[in-house]
Each structure stands twice: as structure tokens, then as C-alpha cells.
């Protein structure tokens, strides 16, 4: 089974978020980039597990500049066989998706996996857009993925419950919590990653549909109002009369 795993870089989850150039650009000063957690923990690790039990190949793909190669090596260290970087700094999710779809069209994959969203732009768009561009079925936010012949058996969490789906592959699936457990790369993996193939592909012609014009930070909270732990009537009264939330 040949699996393509789409990965994106993302700022480390402890990053302080700030903007520059009149709040039009993300300020990368001091920011450490990681593999977007959903792409790494769930999509990549589940792809490796499927390969381990069924054979095949796991290729990772990212759309970005040479600066993203550290993140690609990290994903290779976890166990992907090879990597593709499409050499363009993307403007929107549609551009990312159309670049990946163009590459996938030239190379046959049984399964294309993404994380459920990136932790920076949270759009949850790329997987579904790839699926549409390739006219493939798509399942969003799968928390389980098993293989049964030509059929994928998937689970999704819905309203506190579970929905079980079946679809034949090839297909595109976005992966959420529950699908796999995080893997920490070992020294052998890190050494091997240095020499694994990383193919750089020139950008395909594509359009962009949207753009981020500016950013803002949430307003700072007023100082917390401390309530005596023995006076919960006061808390209830404040929630009712002042905050008007109960």
C-alpha cells in the first residue's frame, strides 16, 4: 500500500504568538518550528503502522521553502521512507492542496492522509480540497482507520458518540486524536533520516483564492476577581448579575 502523508510545519505549541509589519505578518522571532502535531502524531504514525502490517511505502509531502527541510527530516526520522517538497511558499490552503494534488496525480497513491488541521491556521481545508481535485472520497477527522481488503473502516467522533464508516480506497482521510500514539524518533532513525531521499519539485501552476490581510491578538483580560472559597453564593450572584451567563 502506497501512502502519501501531507505534513506542514507549525510553531511549537508553547510559542508566544506575535505579529510584525503593522500586524500583517507572523513574527517568527524565537519561534521553533515543529511538524504540525496532527500530521505527525496521527497521520504519519498511522501510515507507518499500516505499512508495518501490510507492506508498501510511506512518502511525506510538504509545500514550502528550503527552510522547512528540518521539519521534513524530523518526519523522516520517525520512519517515513522518502520525502517530497514542492518548492513554493503557499498563500492559502487552496494553493497547498492544488500543489499536492498535482503531484499526487502523477504518482499513484492508495491513501492520502493529512492531520485534522494545522495548529496555526486551523482551516481544516487541505485534505478535502485534495480529495475534490482528485475526485476521491474524503473522510474528515477520523479517529480510527483500519484496512479490510479494498475497504477502509473508519471511526469519527460525533456529538460525544462514534460513527463507523466504510469506504473503498483510494481515498483521502484527515486524522484526529485516537488514531495512533505519538512516536519519538530514536538515534537510528535520526541517522537514517539524513540520507533518505528528499525530492524537491518545482511549483506547479496554481491559483490562490483567499489571503490573510492582518492579524490581532485577543484583548487582555481584566484582572481576575478573587472570591472567598467560603462564599460561593457570591460567585453565583456575580455570574448571574454581573457576567449574566447563568
Amino acid at each position, binding site marked *: 500500500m502506497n501512502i502519501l502523508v501531507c505534513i506542514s510545519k507549525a510553531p511549537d505549541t508553547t510559542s508566544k504568538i506575535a*505579529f510584525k509589519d503593522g500586524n500583517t505578518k507572523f513574527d517568527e522571532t524565537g519561534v521553533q518550528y515543529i511538524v504540525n502535531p496532527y500530521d505527525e502524531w496521527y497521520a504519519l504514525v498511522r501510515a507507518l503502522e499500516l505499512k508495518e502490517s501490510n507492506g508498501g511505502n510511506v512518502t511525506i509531502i510538504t509545500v514550502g521553502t528550503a527552510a522547512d527541510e528540518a521539519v521534513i527530516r524530523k518526519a523522516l526520522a520517525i520512519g517515513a521512507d522518502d520525502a517530497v517538497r514542492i518548492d513554493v511558499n503557499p498563500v492559502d490552503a487552496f494553493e497547498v492542496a492544488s500543489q499536492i494534488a498535482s503531484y499526487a496525480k502523477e504518482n499513484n497513491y492508495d491513501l492520502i492522509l493529512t492531520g485534522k488541521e494545522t495548529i496555526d491556521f486551523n482551516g481544516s481545508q487541505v485534505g478535502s480540497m485534495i480529495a475534490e481535485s482528485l475526485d476521491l472520497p474524503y473522510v474528515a477527522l477520523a479517529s480510527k482507520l483500519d484496512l479490510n481488503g479494498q475497504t477502509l473502516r473508519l471511526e469519527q467522533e460525533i456529538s460525544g458518540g462514534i460513527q463507523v464508516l466504510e469506504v473503498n480506497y483510494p481515498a483521502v482521510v484527515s486524522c484526529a486524536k485516537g488514531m495512533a500514539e505519538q512516536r519519538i524518533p530514536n538515534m537510528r532513525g535520526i541517522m537514517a533520516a539524513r540520507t533518505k531521499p528528499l525530492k524537491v519539485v518545482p511549483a506547479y501552476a496554481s491559483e490562490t483564492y483567499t489571503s490573510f490581510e492582518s492579524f490581532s491578538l485577543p484583548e487582555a483580560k481584566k484582572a481576575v476577581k478573587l472570591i472567598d*472559597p467560603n462564599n460561593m453564593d457570591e460567585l453565583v450572584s456575580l*455570574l448571574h448579575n454581573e457576567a449574566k451567563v447563568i
Partner: protein
Amino acid sequence: MSILVYISGEHAGAKASHEAVTYAKKLGSDVVVVASGNSSDLADLGTYGASKVLVDANVSDADSRQITALVAKAVEATGADTIIFSHDLISKAVAPRLSVRLKAGLVSGAVALPEGDKIKVNVFSGKAFGYVTVKTAKKIIALLPNSISPEATGSACPVENFDAGTGNAAVKVVDKKIPEGEVPLPEAEVVVSAGRGLKGPENWGMVEELAKLLGAATACSRPVADIGWRPHHEHVGQTGLAIRPNLYIAIGISGAIQHLAGVNGSKTIVVINTDPEAPFFKAADYGVVGDAFEVVPKLIEAVKKFKG
């Protein structure tokens, strides 16, 4: 301006659906709803501003290609230039597909009505906002739940059959289990959440009792979901669910930056923690420094007295 709203028949009665139709009504005069799957709640969407509902009962909520074909057909039939979704599981599968099919820019995670040509969205997992412009003639907006209040000002509207002829579903639902009577977390107006400070899963009784009294959903921090004290779907935070309830009560959660990212869209935050230095107090509106095992039972009594 003609606006189309996609609603799943199954969710037609949900607050998030009422919000989506209300949002559409504020954007344009003529609002049409297109729905997959029939439901007696569909006509009621007229109350929130829909002039009619087009429904195809043969389309499966699990198959994004079928729904995309249905919505695309409804766009053609109505001439809509803006399509609204509620940013939920179905729309995450359908709205991006539709964006590609219609060459219409998609703005996902909108938290407010457009200001001029800019639409405000949640980014960096709730740590910041972005302002997005759409370059295409048609646009699609996926609205985050709890971003605007539903306004019931009209009356029920006609529901018409709309056969989009989308064929057979490629994705099949083989099983579905939904616990009854629970408030779905993303839609909950009040959320009671607890963390490691509760010391063990056996101590969640008081959390559930408080939640029930307040008509709230329960949630938890990541460590608690990771060690299996609570189910994963309750995990809120940067790598879990991002929620924006009116009231978020955090019990025994220190407030790591990753947790705050998922909840700082809440209108009012109450923090109960033994440690006065817990970072969560900086993000809180009301704080109680004290032992959860003493404070929560007192809070339950106070709420009971208030509800009388």
C-alpha cells in the same frame, strides 16, 4: 445579495444551525437553506430568516461528494454568491470540496460578520485572530459555533423537495452510537471542565453534578484524557477541541498555554485551583483559590439555592 446556507437535516434543530441562518440573514435579504436529509425541524429555520428550504432526502451526511454536488446544484438554482456553513464535522468535509468545485474562496472558522471585505477568523488555535479577504466572485464562509446569537424574528418557511440526483454514496455509515441527553461540547453555552487536580477519575461525580445543574457539558484537560480518566472527546485545548462557551468553569486545571488556546474564546472564565500562582488565574474573570473538594460541593449548594 442571495445567500445559501447548508444545513444537515439531522442538525436542523441545533443552535449552531440557527446561528448559521441568522448570520446569513444579516448578510443578505434572500436566504435559502439547502439540506441533506429530511427533518421536521427544517421549516422552523424560516424563523431565523430562511425564505425556503430545499431538501434532498437521499443525500448521506457521511458522503462529502454527494453533499458537495447537492450544494453546487442549489447554488446554480438560486444564483447564490455566498454560501454559509456551520464549521462542524460535515462542513469540514464539504466546504473545502465545494470551494474547489465552485472556484469560491473559503473562509473557515469565522467568528464575526464581515467588516468591509474582511472576515475575522480564529487562528493559532484561539491565540489570535486573522482578517481574511476573498479574491473570487463567490465566497464560502464556515462560521464557528457560538459566534453570534440566533435571532428568531420570522415565521416557519416552506420546505421543498430538491432532487439533486447525486447517485449512490461512496462512504457508508455502518454503525452509529450517540449517547442520549448529553450536551454536545462545541455547542454548549456552559462548560464545566476539570484536570489533574481532581486526583482520579472516581472524583468526577461532583463535576458531573455541577454540569447537570447548570445544563452544561463536561470537558477536561489533555493529561486527564491521555491517562484515560476521561474520554478523548472531552479534551479541550490546542490539540483537542477549541470551544467558546458563555461560561467556562475550570476545576483543578493549571492553565498551560496549550489549554488556554482552546478555551480563551469563552466569554466568562471561572478558575478554581489550590495554587494561587496557577497561570490560569491570569486568564480568568473570577477566581477561587481553594481545594476543589471543598469548593465544588459549596458551589453546587449555592447553585441549587439559586435555581431554588
